[in-house]
């Protein structure tokens, strides 16, 4: 009889291994309050009893499908939408935006005043606000935050994009030629604990709206100091973020940071029970990261997530008929066909106007763009004020296009048309169909089209910026409600992708935009923008505005309380499930 020793040895070894592993690992559950399992009547009985808009269970959980992982949690260094979505729930700024609109409303500041010269803004702060770590929010904290943003150095400067784009330079920053980079920010004074005065270096229309951007959120000075928040390092070809940004973000918002589980790709936030305003209606907010769009849709259909952002327009009807809530946001973006004015053919205004007449924009909008999209007549959507009426229109007219080309002597025009693959943007859900439609429109006007398609981050953006295209498709989603956010971003700097430095009016346009932005009086400023818009469409035409689209948000039918925002500034605090 064989003893089969090797079999016994093997079994014994396996058993020992299993026992020892089991001994050294115990369950960590039950140490923290379990929030997700069946909840009895919560201690917060008041919210359970609140009238029409109240959840039956105050300890509910919302799971939202995110398209990508947040890069870290310090809003100052954030640049992408997915990071903003998460940090917006935990942070607030001095101003905010009325839910569902791009209009400014008070947030951490209950009111403000500007001085007669327009340079100093005094903000009166809310009372009784505390940061998540318990430290008080006061004027000293406001000034600490702003000074901290201004004093960024090295890698922090390159990561502080929204500061660069809006305020300009940082403390002591010099450009390539050694000249100091001008900054809008002057100083901040905390005259008393309840009021902070911010002084700018010149007048701007960006204030106070820009303080509502998540990048300008107020964070706890104690935590910022304790966890070394400014210690961003560039190493190799990536950045290392400090402990503050990765593990200890501390704001004032209705949700607090709990954990970022990288193994399971989820970010968990919990309700801030000491919030100064109306407390969040759900206890736990989980962002589940699902990079594939179809997978997000299927998770919603299977019921494992409660909603996600930017559903493919082709799916809208299907989702609606399956009973989901499709929240369509008011359009706050613009899609345009840009001209690279380096090309001498395009420097003739008649050629550009011919192209504008050749494009059948209404048909594109009705057949290829989602419901709610409109043809654009300006370089920004109609949700931005002032929306100038009576600018030159370019109604679809192929014959006119041909005539203009003939008059310019360019009937045999050839253009290199660039379009991006492998991307959807809120203003451009399907670049390929837009390209195909325009290509045939332009060919019908006698223009020969050479096409170049590259992945969005595989040469498209680089090439367009390096002015390698002749005509290209691009757009912009607005940050806040001023024309400057659109037109300034496009045309202020003459080394822009339209190459406006190659035409005589390039510098003039840049100067006009600067002047308009620096005008103190609102009426005067609006008049200046009206003039600029008229010139842009009639005399300059650096591109053809195409459309504004309404990106949407989709939620399960039992999710209540969500208000869709044109700025993608959706707050989850009022959201709960029935």
């Amino acid at each position, binding site marked *: 009889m064989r003893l089969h020793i090797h079999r016994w040895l093997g079994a014994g070894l396996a058993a020992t291994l299993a026992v020892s592993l089991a001994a050294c690992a115990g369950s960590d559950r039950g140490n923290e309050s379990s929030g997700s399992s069946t909840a009895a009547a919560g201690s917060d009985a008041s919210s359970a009893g609140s009238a029409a808009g109240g959840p039956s269970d105050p300890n509910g959980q919302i799971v939202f499908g995110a398209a990508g992982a947040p890069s870290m949690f310090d809003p100052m260094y954030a640049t992408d939408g997915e990071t903003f979505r998460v940090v917006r729930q935990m942070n607030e700024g001095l101003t905010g935006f009325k839910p569902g609109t791009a209009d400014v409303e008070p947030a951490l500041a209950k009111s403000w005043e500007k001085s007669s010269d327009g340079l100093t803004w005094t903000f009166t702060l809310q009372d009784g606000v505390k940061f998540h770590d318990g430290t008080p929010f006061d004027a000293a904290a406001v000034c600490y935050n702003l000074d901290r943003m201004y004093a960024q150095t090295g890698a922090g400067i390159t990561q502080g994009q929204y500061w660069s784009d809006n305020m300009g330079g940082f403390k002591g920053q010099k450009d390539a030629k050694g000249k100091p980079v001008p900054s809008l920010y002057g100083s901040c004074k905390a005259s008393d604990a309840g009021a902070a005065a911010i002084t700018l270096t010149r007048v701007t229309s960006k204030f106070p709206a820009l303080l509502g951007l998540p990048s300008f959120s107020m964070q706890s000075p104690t935590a910022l100091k304790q966890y070394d928040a400014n210690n961003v390092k560039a190493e190799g070809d990536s950045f290392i973020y400090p402990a503050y940004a990765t593990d200890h973000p501390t704001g004032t918002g209705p949700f607090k940071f709990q954990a970022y589980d990288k193994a399971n790709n989820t970010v968990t936030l919990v309700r801030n029970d000491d919030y100064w305003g109306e407390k969040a209606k759900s206890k736990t907010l989980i962002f589940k990261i699902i990079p594939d769009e179809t997978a997000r849709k299927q998770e919603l259909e299977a019921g494992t997530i409660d909603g996600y952002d930017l559903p493919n327009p*082709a799916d809208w009807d299907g989702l609606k008929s399956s009973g989901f809530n499709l929240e369509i946001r008011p359009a706050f973006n613009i899609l345009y066909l840009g001209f690279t004015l380096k090309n001498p053919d395009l420097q003739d205004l008649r050629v550009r106007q011919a192209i504008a007449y050749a494009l059948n924009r209404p048909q594109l909008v009705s057949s*290829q763009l989602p419901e709610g999209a409109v043809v654009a007549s300006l370089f920004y959507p109609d949700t931005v004020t002032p929306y100038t009426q009576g600018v030159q229109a370019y109604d679809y007219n192929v014959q006119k296009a041909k005539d203009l080309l003939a008059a310019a002597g360019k009937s045999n025009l050839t253009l290199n048309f660039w379009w991006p693959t492998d991307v959807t943007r809120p203003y451009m859900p399907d670049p390929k169909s837009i390209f195909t439609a325009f290509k045939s429109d332009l060919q019908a006007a006698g223009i020969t089209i050479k096409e170049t*398609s590259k992945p969005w981050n595989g040469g498209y953006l680089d090439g367009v910026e390096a002015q390698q295209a002749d005509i290209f498709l691009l757009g912009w989603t607005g940050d806040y409600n001023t024309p400057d956010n659109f037109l300034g971003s496009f045309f202020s700097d003459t080394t822009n992708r339209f190459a406006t430095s190659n035409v005589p009016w390039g510098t003039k346009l840049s100067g006009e935009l600067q002047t308009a932005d620096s005008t103190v009086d609102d009426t005067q400023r609006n008049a200046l923008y009206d003039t600029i818009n008229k010139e842009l469409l009639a005399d300059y035409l650096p591109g053809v505005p195409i459309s504004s689209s309404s990106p949407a948000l989709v939620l399960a039918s039992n999710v209540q309380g969500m208000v869709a925002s044109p700025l993608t500034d959706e707050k989850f605090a009022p959201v709960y499930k029935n």
Partner: protein
Amino acid sequence: MATTYTRARKQRIDALVSSGDEGSSLLQDAWTRLKGSPLFWVGAVIIGVFLVLAIIAPWIAPHDPGAQLLIGQTSRARNAIAPAQEGFPLGGDTQGRDLLSRLMVGARQTLLVGIFATLIGLIGGLILGLLAGAFGGWVDTLIMRIVDVMLSIPSLLLAISIGVLFSNPNLTSVIIAVGVPQIPVFARLLRGQLLAQRESDHVLAARALGVKQGTIVFRHMLPNSVSPVIVQATLVVATSILDAAALSYLGLGSQDVSQPEWGQMLGEAQGSIDSHPQLAFWPAGAIIIVVLGFTLLGESLREAIDPKNRR
């Protein structure tokens, strides 16, 4: 009388010789086995139909595969496509083109992708394998380490990065992207074959007789290595078609809409699979059948050629 007897006897002997087991050649043996294998016939018929379709498709396709004839009934944003109707038995696709014509003409492009990608792998592998197998020594080690490195990078990634290098992804870039990762496969195969051959009797005999190295390689070793390479090539055609489809799924396939290809059609249809499943099922079905055909052919060839099956 002696002549008749001799002639009759001679005829009888001839008859015996020609009817019996006179030691048929390897190829004849293989053919006999193949003829009896149902898998071979299924595979051969599928490939045959596919080849014929690929050749005559442009003439028998009812419409131009690139023409957006049904665009009026199509709306990308509203997710409407043209249904099956008179003259368009399978309906339209998301850009208003006739699905049936695209399927038929797609056979040609798909076949081209499969064949040319395999050729790239074959020729590249041939060069590397020959160098390694024929010379041996440090040349062999160097080449085999290069091959190892190429094999260790997942072929799809190699394909993706090659695909990304092209500014205008089209069928040529797909062919190169899918073909290059096949080079190490053939190189290794060929080298193995050549190594085995080197020690075999007929090569030793040739060398002893003083035949030149080059002649030995090309006239003696290569022809005997051919059969496994043929088998592998048929299988590689199949996997090339699949890899091209995978590239399209990942968004790196051909963007050229006028030349349809089944993998490209499948990749485009992924997004609308629950509303318009036919857009995905038709090209998927076509790919599956053709890949199956090539694989059946390859497998039955492999069985038939294997000399161990002589028993």
